């Protein structure tokens, strides 16, 4: 076969596959915007009202409990996970341990990232059973923190890794301790660190499999750390399995809200990493 013919065949194939990928994205976002938008425009109160007692059985009410539940669960868990992951990433980077050992630890975190999220849920659920408690907002927060920790560690680690070695060396040569050196390198790695935190937050926001066991997944507003709560993905899952068409319609509204939050997180992470770029080396303006 002529090499130019082969070239054009493969080029066509590549364009087709790019179109397939794009079609998936456009269809998913399109469905959410159109169907979710219609539900919300027809009945804006869906987003702002608490659900009635029989909401999932076709009763009246809205999805406010899930929105609030998601927010109350994701924000504290991200804060916990960020602090923990930041310390872990520093530990992997700064010269507290030998390089060889930190590479082995990285493999451990890769494994943690790969564990299906449902296993985190089962682990926490078992602790709940042993200690004789029920699913609650607090348990959901802990699950989500565990779930997003490996993601954030990986991103922070990569960000700290990309800091030029000269900065570390010059900090040491000025007599800084390892901790102070670590804080200096942090400043240079800030865009990556923030992006990592937001990506972890996005993962926690969208995960249903772990929360469905641990947060109680009830039909009530989140009232306290030890009370049951729901979250948007869990609610969407319950709504999509419902027999009532009106409940299924509401799933698109919930998914619209969820996807808007996720896209906002994505954009903010992009903008903030551009904004903080001025602190990184090489852009000495």
């Amino acid at each position: 076969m002529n090499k130019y013919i082969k070239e054009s065949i493969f080029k066509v194939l590549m364009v087709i596959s790019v179109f397939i990928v794009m079609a998936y994205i456009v269809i998913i976002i399109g469905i959410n915007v159109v169907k979710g938008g219609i539900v919300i425009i027809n009945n804006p109160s869906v987003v702002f009202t608490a659900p009635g007692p029989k909401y999932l059985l076709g009763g009246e009410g809205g999805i406010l409990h899930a929105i609030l539940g998601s927010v109350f669960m994701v924000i504290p868990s991200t804060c916990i996970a960020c602090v923990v992951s930041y310390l872990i990433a520093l530990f992997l980077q700064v010269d507290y341990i030998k390089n060889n050992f930190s590479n082995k630890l990285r493999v451990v975190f890769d494994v943690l990232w790969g564990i299906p999220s449902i296993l985190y849920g089962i682990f926490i659920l078992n602790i709940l059973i042993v200690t004789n408690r029920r699913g609650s907002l607090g348990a959901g927060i802990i699950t989500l923190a565990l779930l997003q920790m490996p993601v954030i560690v990986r991103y922070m680690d990569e960000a700290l890794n990309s800091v030029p070695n000269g900065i570390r060396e010059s900090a040491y040569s000025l007599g800084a301790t390892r901790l102070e050196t670590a804080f200096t390198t942090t400043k240079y790695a800030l865009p990556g660190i923030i992006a990592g935190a937001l990506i972890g937050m996005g993962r926690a926001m969208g995960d249903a499999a772990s929360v469905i066991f641990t947060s109680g997944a009830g039909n009530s507003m989140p009232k306290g750390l030890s009370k049951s709560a729901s979250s948007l993905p869990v609610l969407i899952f319950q709504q999509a399995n419902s027999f009532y068409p009106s409940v299924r319609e509401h799933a698109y509204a919930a998914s619209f809200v969820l996807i808007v939050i996720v896209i906002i997180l994505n954009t903010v992470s992009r903008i903030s990493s551009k904004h903080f770029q001025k602190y990184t080396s090489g852009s000495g303006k």
Partner: protein
Amino acid sequence: MKKQNTRIILDKIFKCLMVIIISAVLLFIIALLIMLIRRSQLILSRYTIWELLFSSDWDPDKGLYGFLPAVTGTFFVTVLSLLIAVPISILSAVYISEYMPSTIKSYFQTFIDVLAGIPSVVFGLCALLVLVPLTRDVIGPLFGVKTTGMCVFTAALVLAAMVFPVIISITVESLGILPVGLKEQFLSLGATKWQLIETVLFRAAGPGIISGIILGFGRAFGETMAVVMVIGNKNILIPSLFSPGQTLPGIIVGSFNEMMSVPEHQSALIFISLILFVIVLFFNILANIIKNRLKSRWRYE
């Protein structure tokens, strides 16, 4: 002098803090493993592993726990989704990184990032609206099969969409870091672009692409919600790809809440989690070994 001491002490304190946190994480993995093993002991004491894995009857009410349908279901869904996703995502990654002008490229990468961030329940929800009717009305008749649309094939189509961003972003990244000289030398010999990609770039970026595929496998394998929503959840050995099936994580989600009271059933579900954990562990370690091997063999710098 005094200030010096506080700085060093602070350094030591933080070191202790980090060591504590790291050990807590390691402890978490060990605790998870021990918990899974201990809690699945009950089911293993009544049935042998082979009985559980190779029996095809699943009926907890009668005390029948056969995982074979779910195991084959998981296998077919994962493999089929990778068969769909791997060629498409590698080809589009090559197009994005080698053919596309750099201005459009960054927009595309944003789109791919958005796709990566979309929660799995949203994938499931959209699949219910689009892919299920598509399989029922178009693809099923195309193959001459009657199907409800809630089947293994649809699940694989959804999973493929979730694997795309993983493989694409890693492939684009590993193609991007190759030295420009490598491409220029080959092109100056009169090769076409595809020859360059085929003979040089795939080899040079090989380790990255393969680890991307294994990561994609991990994502497809562990995915729960999107699959549960479209696969039909019938615990039978699938006669064809267009019949409803079940996956391992699907069983757990489907029956954990209602069956909490039966200890044997609970133990069976935890044994499924143990299987999931072991397989994920195995593939992650495998991916690492492959990556390191290939890196030393296929080095181009």
